[in-house]
């Protein structure tokens, strides 16, 4: 499943880049994150309980920075292991200076395996859209904090 | 009141009182089959679609795989084992045999409970009403033809 979109941030590109590349700040954008440990500047792991309305889906996700061209492009690979669900995701961000702030083009290719994927097909797409909008909302907040902080 | 993960419950099943301590997470069907060893009710799916686990709780037809045992605290439960008085088949059970309304017999307990619930409310159901009453009970052997006929025979 491919998901993509664009987002405007009222903040200079450098600020957006700084947030995107700081695992600690990125952690705060993730829904239901419970704990976060950073191995090095290219690898970190998050323990999350993704709120799915009827209950939480526990997962531990390993992030790895694959590619980076400061301050315009970054590519991440995420591998999540939960009960009845294995998540493989590749996401990339393109940051472009735009008047009044920064334009981010993002895309993600989500591979979900296991019973959750086979039973949740019809609710998968709406749920992914929900999670993405929450992450982007939280990211916007982080960027504003970074800008003023 | 605080929350608990285990609870002692008392239930009346087919006229007999049982008191057991159960995990909250234990489904009513597992409680009936494994804890009370009443293995007449069956499990045919894991999504609440097949109805093989149908029982009556306080006279209401339910799928006991979508209820927790703790939810049945204080309830009066009727299962297939309670239909025949001392081994004498009731009319519905006899009609199921006369009309060959069962082959492997795995869905039969659930079918009998659904038909029992229907006939208590409606003595002369139409064919559509009969089919609607067993819509929640999957059978893979009979194609439902003789089951509908057996219920019709008892309600005529």
């Amino acid at each position, binding site marked *: 499943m491919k998901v993509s979109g664009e987002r405007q941030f009222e903040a200079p590109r450098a600020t957006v880049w700084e947030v995107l590349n700081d695992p600690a700040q990125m952690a705060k954008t993730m829904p239901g994150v419970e704990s976060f440990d950073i191995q090095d500047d290219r690898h970190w792991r998050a323990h999350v309980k993704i709120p799915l309305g009827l209950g939480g889906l526990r997962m531990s996700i390993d992030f790895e920075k694959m590619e980076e061209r400061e301050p315009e492009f970054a590519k991440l690979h995420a591998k999540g292991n939960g009960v009845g669900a294995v998540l493989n995701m590749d996401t990339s961000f393109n940051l472009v200076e735009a008047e009044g702030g920064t334009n981010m083009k993002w895309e993600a290719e989500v591979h979900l395996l296991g019973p959750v994927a086979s039973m949740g097909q019809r609710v998968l797409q709406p749920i992914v859209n929900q999670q993405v909008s929450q992450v982007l909302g939280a990211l916007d907040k982080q960027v504003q904090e970074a800008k003023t902080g | 009141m605080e929350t608990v993960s285990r609870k002692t419950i008392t239930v009346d099943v087919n006229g007999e009182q049982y008191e057991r301590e159960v995990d909250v997470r234990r489904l009513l069907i597992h409680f009936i089959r494994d804890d009370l060893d009443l293995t007449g009710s069956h499990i045919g799916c894991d999504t609440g679609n097949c109805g093989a686990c149908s029982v009556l709780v306080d006279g209401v037809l339910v799928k006991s795989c979508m209820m927790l045992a703790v939810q049945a605290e204080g309830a009066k439960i009727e299962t297939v084992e309670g239909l025949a008085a001392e081994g004498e088949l009731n009319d519905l059970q006899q009609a199921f045999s006369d009309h060959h309304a069962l082959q492997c017999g795995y869905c039969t307990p659930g079918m009998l409970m659904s038909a029992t619930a229907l006939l208590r409310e409606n003595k002369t159901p139409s064919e559509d009403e009969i089919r609607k009453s067993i819509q929640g009970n999957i059978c893979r*052997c009979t194609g439902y033809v003789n089951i509908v006929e057996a219920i019709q025979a008892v309600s005529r």
Partner: protein
Amino acid sequence: MTETTVTPERALVVEEGDVKPGFIGQSVPRKEDKRLVQGEGVFFDDVKRHEMGYVHFVRSPYAHARIKSVDVSKAHELDGVYGTLTGDEVAILTDPFFELSTAPGANIKDYALAVGRVRHVGDPVAAVVARTRELARDAAELVEVEYEPLPHVLDGEESLKDEVVLHEEAGSNTVWSGVFDWGDFDAALADADHVVRIERLHFDRFSSTPLECSGCLVEYNRGTAQWTIHGNHQMPGVGAIWMAPALRVGIDKLRFVSQDIGGGFGNKITLHPQYTACCLLARKLNRPVQWTEWRTDQHTANTHGNERTFLDVTVPVKADGTMLGFSVRAIDDCGAFPRYEPLGCIIWAQVTPGCYRWRNIRVDFTQVCTNKSPVAPNRGYSRMQHLWLTERIVDIVAGELGLDPIEVRKKNYVKHEEFPYETPNGCIYDSGDYARCLDIALDLIGYDSLEEKRRDAESRGKLLGIGIGSTLDSGTNNFGQSMILNPELQFSGNNEVATVKLDIFGEVVVTLGTVPQGQGHETTASQVVADILGCTPDQVNVRAGHDTYWNSTAGFSGTYASQFAVTGLGAVKGATEKLAGEMKQLAAAVFGCSPDDIELVESQARIKGNPEAALPFMALGAILNANNAGLPPELDVTLNVRHVYRPPFEKPDLERKYGNLTLTYATQIHACALEIDPETGVYEIVDYAAVDDCGNRIHPQIVEGQVHGATAQALGAATHEIFTYDEEGNLLTPNFYDYHVPHALDMPPLKTGFIESESPFTPLGAKGMGEGGGAGIHAVCAALQNALGRRGEGPIVWRSCNPYEGVWDLVQKPEQTRKLVSVESR
């Protein structure tokens, strides 16, 4: 109104009326019902043992991956966990199950758990045993498996390219391949006035999903090193043949016990991997272990029916509609492991010409594995797929040449007077009257008022379609056909066993080698015994279920492939006739006359013409068992008789792939009327008839029940039931939430009819008949085609399963399927 009006008393049927003298032929009350309607049956999950552990399998989320490590340490730390089993242990403790195929299929290594690699989503990697069901599942979540994902392949044709190879040791995904060429197809092609070509047809993957899932409770006796398996295996004889060598034990160390089974339909034949894992656990943990499979496990990892693609179908036809033969390339997708396969590569050859007289048939057959769940001989096994091909050919040829599909059938059906009829590859169709069954079916759905029905439908904005589906239910396999696949195999013929004894108190006790899952064997066996011994079925006690030790069994013991009425009852008849002979000899010794003077009637052995000189059964039993002094020494009588029924088979000619592969051929002809809403693709079956001919009917009600049930399964497979995978290899219909089987409201009014063409080859003139219902798939496809197509235009129904969107696509884009068919006229 649901009309099952057409049973023996119906006016439509010509030959009813000659009620058999005894109990055979009557619908006597079923012995099995009393316990089952009181919830007092014993299904495997009802069996409990003190301190038993519950098994839960850890299953792969990947369609294809290397197993780098399996860490069970955290699982062991959980309180209440008794133990675990992993693939590495299995690879040490057992040998791979032997493979039926020749290379490359022969080199596939199939174990009780995944060893080294997982090859489909749900492939079991490890097993955990715990005190409760819930704990076993909790512990299974703590088992950490590290996978290295590999590319996977989900399509049969794609898999043939061997770009992704599932079994390294085999080196190719081809399990078996061969060309079957009978008659002279090229000459037929030259002689044809028309040649109809069909580029592609596809028989979809589905399963008859028995309501009771699989499972077992296994006990291990350390003193005798012997296992008792309380389970629902349909074919323990063959199951043991796989398991014993793998466990490196004598076959007698495996005792299979089952009483009641919640349906099988062929999906409980390849349980040997899971059962072997449970045997290892019972021995390792020195405690009974109980495995119950849940619905989602059954769909994702137990068994599916064969999925088969037909390519480049070529059909030479004469101007008058006579079809000369056909050639086809078939690719059969057997999933990740060939377990009962590649037998499916030859089973279809039992009905090579289907119901038709064409003599020139060429089939290029290849079976391939893919990263999907393994297949098993689901009801109709391999013959249903092939018969669907022959029926699709007939309807498409008729449609393209503007002929009436009913007339084309009548012209090409094997004629009543041609039986027994030898097919192009040497099978013998024993008896039948296909045309007459078709007429009865058409009458039942009021075919002559077709135009009126079509106009009425059109007035409501609906398209009416009428379709025919004709199938043969080939029963009683000659397992010698497996040698055509692999000459080194040592399987041929068939057998089943029964014992009958007269007890000390004169009670008649019968044991069967079969494994009934709802077919009523206890009842039909008691009818045969009663008629031979001159008593009533109530006086005959048939032991319920199967028991390798307690009852007598044979190599092919089990219940499968429509054969009980022939092999099971053949064994019962043989054993009872021997017992009757011994009873007459004993009575003759007591009365001092010749056995020929004795008759068995009203539960007594009497001197003919002298009713007073009678010995009740109880007397005979008592004399031999407890009062035998004074009996003549040469009297060799035990009153406890075993009989093995062996059908009369030869080994096939392996060169020409020629020979009689099945003993009997029951017929089922179905007629379906449906209405399509062209705006949405939604369609509803408005009338339906199924006419059956299975020789002498032992128990008419049971026969008719089989027709009802098989038809329902076929209608499910034709409309909604399909195992679809996404590109990751996840099964998208893993349980009854998305895999929609027919419920009560889905079933159309089902009318049935029958005739009885006695089989000249079987002990009771009966034929096996459990698998003919597949005709429902052919009839629905034909009816959809009839509703949507007109001569030479309109869409082609090319798949066996047609959900609403499929029909909507056919209506919206007819050219997409029209281009699959071309006609060359000379």
